[in-house]
């Protein structure tokens, strides 16, 4: 797989195929590095792009980003200057031995380089080419760029999240559509690979970050189409069933919260018993699910008063033992340092990196019984250094001589 993706929405897709045993070769050039190589936190010194460089040397310390290490785990990397005609000739030699080409440039870039699907296909008739741009190539907005927050805003995902007015949308506190975009990038590549295994045919796929965002907006479009109803935010309350209490409640400690979701009368009884059956639980306003839903504001206040001075994890375990769905709003620290279930599932695996050493990397959450599947991929390693696999790819795969490689280096091509 020739991986011309950027940051996460693109870069996360090939990562998943690596975990499943593919060989992703990341193609980079030092003048326009993936912003994640330059984004902290870093292990050791930060990148320094100001140092004098030879025609093909990368900036100093571009292999030390922790986030890059996570997102590009398992991949190979080569350096190649695609802005030069000679670089594009080398790229074409790679296409001849590839199964998949994937890029997340804006939609005209590859065509402007003379590397559209027709050209790739003339080199390798069964090539799979996934163009994973922001908005897609076909259409009126194909020249627009996108980041996760843009995709979330346009699709409706942002508007769907948050408390009712007068609060504005809360949106997402991270680029949901970067990982989710990456999932659809991986999905489309895998579907095309399966189809090629069965039929021998390659294909071109005009993918985007925006369309998976729309795909994940749930039932709102249908509710409008069928009932003419516009979406209205309702915080953390249950929207599919009458269920209450259903929300987040403050606990002891700074900014600590527990989510509680009572989905049946039985669970309500268990919660009331854990609260010590205070007299208000027998009040007319809270006796049935329908009554509790109708009086949610007051119910939330009363439940919140009970949780407010309790240690959140002890409360979670106690409620779960009583059969009440409950979970602490966990931070990254909680998940990395404490969560016993994630630890049991080996959600982080130690993988080596040649410059920064061994670090925990987020593993894929699918546990295969027969096949060896983990985020180290066939190479069993974290992210590659800039140009780390030039010798393997140019030498072993393409059969370039040492002299040929040296010449390309001197010309600023690799």
């Amino acid at each position: 797989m020739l991986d011309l993706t950027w940051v996460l929405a693109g870069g996360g897709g090939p990562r998943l195929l690596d975990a499943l045993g593919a060989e992703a070769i990341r193609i980079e050039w030092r003048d326009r590095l993936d912003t994640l190589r330059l984004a902290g936190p870093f292990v050791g010194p930060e990148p320094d792009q100001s140092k004098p460089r030879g025609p093909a040397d990368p900036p100093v310390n571009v292999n030390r980003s922790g986030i890059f290490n996570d997102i590009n785990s398992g991949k190979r990397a080569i350096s190649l200057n695609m802005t030069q005609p000679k670089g594009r000739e080398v790229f074409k030699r790679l296409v001849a031995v590839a199964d998949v080409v994937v890029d997340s440039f804006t939609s005209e870039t590859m065509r402007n380089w003379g590397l559209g699907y027709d050209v790739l296909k003339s080199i390798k008739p069964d090539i799979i080419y996934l163009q994973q741009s922001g908005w897609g190539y076909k259409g009126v907005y194909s020249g627009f760029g996108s980041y996760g927050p843009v995709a979330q805003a346009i699709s409706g995902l942002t508007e769907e999240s948050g408390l009712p007015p007068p609060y504005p949308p809360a949106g997402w506190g991270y680029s949901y559509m970067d990982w989710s975009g990456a999932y659809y990038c991986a999905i489309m590549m895998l579907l095309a690979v399966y189809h090629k295994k069965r039929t021998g045919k390659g294909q071109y796929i005009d993918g985007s970050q925006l369309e998976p965002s729309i795909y994940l907006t749930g039932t709102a479009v249908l509710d409008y189409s069928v009932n003419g109803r516009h979406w209205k935010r309702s915080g953390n309350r249950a929207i599919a069933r009458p269920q209450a209490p259903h929300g987040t409640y403050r606990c002891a400690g700074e900014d600590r919260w527990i989510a509680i979701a009572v989905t049946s009368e039985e669970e309500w009884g268990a919660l009331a018993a854990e609260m010590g059956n205070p007299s208000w639980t027998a009040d007319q306003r809270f006796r049935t699910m329908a009554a509790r839903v109708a009086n949610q504001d007051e119910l939330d206040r009363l439940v919140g008063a009970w949780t407010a001075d309790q240690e959140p994890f002890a409360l979670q375990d106690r409620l779960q033992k009583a059969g009440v769905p409950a979970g602490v709003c966990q931070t990254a620290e909680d998940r990395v340092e404490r969560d016993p279930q994630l630890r049991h599932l080996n959600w982080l695996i130690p993988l080596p990196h040649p410059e920064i050493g061994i670090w925990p990397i987020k593993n894929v959450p699918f546990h295969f019984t027969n096949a060896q599947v983990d985020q180290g991929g066939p190479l069993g390693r974290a992210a590659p250094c800039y140009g780390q696999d030039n010798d393997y790819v140019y030498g072993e795969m393409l059969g370039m001589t040492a002299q040929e490689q040296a010449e390309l280096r001197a010309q600023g091509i690799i």
Partner: protein
Amino acid sequence: MADAFLSDVKVLELGDEKGELCGKLFAGAGADVIKLEPPGGGSSRLNAPFYHDQPDPARSLYFWHYNVGKRGVTLDIAARQAKGVLEKLIARSDVVIDSLPLDTLAGLGLDWPALQKLNPRLIYLLLTPFGRSGPWRDYKANDLIHLALGGPMMCCGYDPKPDGTYDTPPIAPQMWHAYQIACNQAFIAAVGALIGRETHGNGELIDVPIHQAVAVSTEVDVPIWIYSKKPVHRQTGRHAVQRISPQAQFQTKDGRYSMLLLGITPRESASLIEFLTEKGFGAELNEKFKDSASRRGPEFNACLNRALTQCMGAFGLEEIWKEAAARRISWAAIRLPEENLTDEHWRMRQTFARVEHPELGETFDYVGAPTLAEDCPWRTGPRAPLPGEHNREIYGSQLGLSAAQIEELARNGII
């Protein structure tokens, strides 16, 4: 009929709402998906919203949305007479998606060795809340609880007060994202296993714990903790990071909101100031911050914030974001999902699809394809099955049960 990615793949879906998007993805990619429900229909048929707000197992829009393109059978799998039928269904399947309560199939004598005996090439995909073992194995969860435990909620919500404390809770973005996140990754694993099977011929058991799937799908909070042991703080409409960043959502003239992603690259910042100037809101910025090196820090941010507030407030939601986006400024309308239905871009790409409901004599707009693949077009439809709609077709012509046998199963309440 046009080619499809998975036109030769047969899928059996068991369980509830946890696994439905995964089956929907299979159907969209062209697989033959059979959804098995208990007699009368599964629990997700009780989820709102409903057609004309009429609660009815055949009229749940939730069910329509997540089960479009599937065929449906009913079967009381716990009944003694059901076992042979269930085994036949499993034997004909390439993939079984199982989100039933833990160990349900094993309890019926259909553990993994038994399933392999029935069908050595089977890909058995388990969607479990917390995994098949471990200290939280039997914890109860729903979408909200998963979004809390998995980490998204602590990243999402509103700005803290000036003193750094919060008076608003963490927010779970609505629309079943915990299940969607898990199903996306389960689908990736299953298609990966199908590709592997083409090479080595073997089936596979894959467990996808929803808790783990959600926990790996937040963005920078985990790497920031791992590499620098620092917490992140949630902020209105923007990334939870260590520091509080400048406001990114602004009210429009019509009382809606637009968002602007500030300064990803210096080129984008320069374009933004140029754009604000053209629209008549850049005077103060140009006067106080002439050269690009000065365009940083709190004073610049405050000045930019004033210009953006005024500019956004002078135009309606859809009025100028496209003009800005055409210049590669990350400015976007915060739309309602349904507002995309009339957008020419999605019309050209057939992102939405019309799906017929012959039982109602009506046709509705559905969210359609997550991508544009012209050689293997995505499929949206036919509409989700009514309870047991395909019992006769599947049990009869496909499993070879006689009309009398089907009649008896129905009479005994097994189907």
